[in-house]
C-alpha cells in the first residue's frame, strides 16, 4: 500500500505540473483527469475506497466532462496556444516558485519533526453512511440546499 501511495503521489505531481505548463488546453485537461484519478488511488491506498470512487465518479467523471464540453464549444485553436506560450515567460515563475519552495520547506520540516506514519485503516461505505446520516445529517442537508440553490440559479441563467 505504501508503494501504491508513493507511485500515485508521483503520478499526481507530474500530471499536475503538466496541467500548468502544457499550452494545449485539451492536453492540460487530460493531465488534470490523470491527476484526479491518481488522487483517487491515493485515497484508496489510505483505506478510503468510497472517497476514491466518489473522486473518480464526481471529479474525474462528471466535472471534467463538463469542462471538456465547454472546451468543445469554444473552438480553441493554434491562436490560443500561441497566446498561452507567450504568457509562459520564465520570469513569471520566480514569484510563485519562491512561495511554493517556502511552503515545501515548511511541509517537509513538519513531516520530519512530527512522526506521522501512514496507517491505513479501511473505512467502508457503511461506516461513512452511518456517520453522514447520523451525527452529520444537518450538514448533508445544508449541502443539498446549497446544490439546490445552484440548480435554481443555473435554471434562471439558462432561461435568459
Amino acid at each position, binding site marked *: 500500500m505504501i508503494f501504491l501511495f508513493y507511485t500515485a503521489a508521483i503520478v499526481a505531481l507530474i500530471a499536475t505540473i503538466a496541467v500548468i505548463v502544457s499550452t494545449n488546453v485539451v492536453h492540460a485537461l487530460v493531465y488534470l483527469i490523470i491527476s484526479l484519478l491518481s488522487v483517487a488511488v491515493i485515497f484508496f491506498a489510505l483505506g478510503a*475506497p*468510497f472517497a476514491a470512487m466518489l473522486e473518480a465518479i464526481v471529479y474525474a467523471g462528471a466535472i471534467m*466532462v463538463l469542462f*471538456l*464540453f465547454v472546451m468543445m464549444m469554444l473552438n480553441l485553436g493554434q491562436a490560443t496556444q500561441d497566446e498561452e506560450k507567450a504568457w509562459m515567460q520564465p520570469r513569471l515563475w520566480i514569484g510563485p516558485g519562491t512561495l511554493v519552495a517556502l511552503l515545501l520547506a515548511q511541509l517537509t520540516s513538519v513531516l520530519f519533526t512530527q512522526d506521522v506514519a501512514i496507517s491505513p485503516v479501511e473505512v*467502508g461505505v457503511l461506516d461513512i453512511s452511518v456517520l453522514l446520516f447520523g451525527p452529520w445529517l444537518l450538514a448533508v442537508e445544508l449541502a443539498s440546499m446549497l446544490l439546490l440553490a445552484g440548480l435554481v440559479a443555473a435554471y434562471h441563467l439558462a432561461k435568459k
Partner: protein
Amino acid sequence: MSFEVGSALSIGAILFTVIIVAAMLIWVERRLLGLWQERLGPNRVGPFGLLQVVADMIKIFTKEDWVPPFADKFSFILAPPIIMVVILLSFSVIPFAPGVGVIDSDIGVLFVLAMASLGAYSVMLGGLSSNNKYALLGSLRAAAQMVSYEVFMGISLLGVVALAGSFNLREIVLSQSDGWFIIPQFVGFVIFLIAGIAESHRLPFDIPEAEQEIVAGYHTEYSGMKFGMFFVGEYLGVVLVSSLMVVLFFGGWLGPAFLPPIVWFVLKASFFIAFFVLLRAAIPRPRYDQLMNYGWLFLLPLSLLNLVLTGAYILWQEGL
C-alpha cells in the same frame, strides 16, 4: 493452479472469453439482424459464416491506420484505447459464477459507475481531436447523452443496492437466492436498461454516430484498428451491460441445479445480448432533444420515485 476468484487462470480466462465474445458479436449481430429482417446475413466464410469475424479482423488489421494531419495527434491516439480499457476494467468486479471472477470488491457497483463515466472521454476526445465538424457534433451529443444517462443509471441501481444492503456485486447475487430483484425492482430494471443502451450508445440511441445526419459522428476520421477499438469497445459495452443486468436483476448465476452456474450466467447474458440486437432491428432512432427531454423530464423523476418507494418499503419491512 486452482480456479478461484482472482487467480491468474480465472483472470486470463475471463479476459480471453470477454474479448472473443465481443468480437464474435460482430457476426452474431449481423446474422440475427438478417434473421429478423428476413434475409440471410453473412454466411459465406466458413460454416454459417462463422469465420466472418476472422475475415473482418484481417481486413481491419491490414487497413491503413491513418492519423489526419489536421488532427491533434496526442488525443487522437489516446481516445480509442480508453473505451476498451475502462470496459475491460469494469468486468473485473462482475461475479460470473461461484469462484469465477477477478475481484470481490465492496465497492463493485461504484467501480462500474466510475468506469462508465470515464468511458465518456473516449468519445469526447475522439471527436474533439479529429478537428472535423461532424466528429465534433457527434461528440457533443455523446457527452450530453452519456453524462445525463449516467445519472439515471446510478439512481436506478440504488434500489437494488438498498435491497441487497451491499455494493458488492457477489453479495447482490447471493441476496437474490429467495427471489430475483426483477420483481421488486421492475421499474429500476427498465430505467437501467434504457440508460444502459444510451451509455453504450447503441441503436436506437446511437445519436452520437447517426449515419444519416453526421456521417459517422465522433469516429468519422478514424480508420484501421483505431476504429476497430471503438467498434469492439461498443460490443464490449453490450456484453458488460447484459452481464450487469443479469447480476443485478436476474440472480446472476443462480438457477435450477441441472445446469452448472456458469451456464446459467451465459444463457441469461446471451438472452440480453440478443435483446439488444432485437432492439436495434425494431426501434427507430429518436431525435436528440427527444432523448434528452425523455431522460430529464421522465426517467429522472421516475427513478427518484422508485428509490423513495424502495426505501419506504425497506423501512416498513423493518418496522414489522
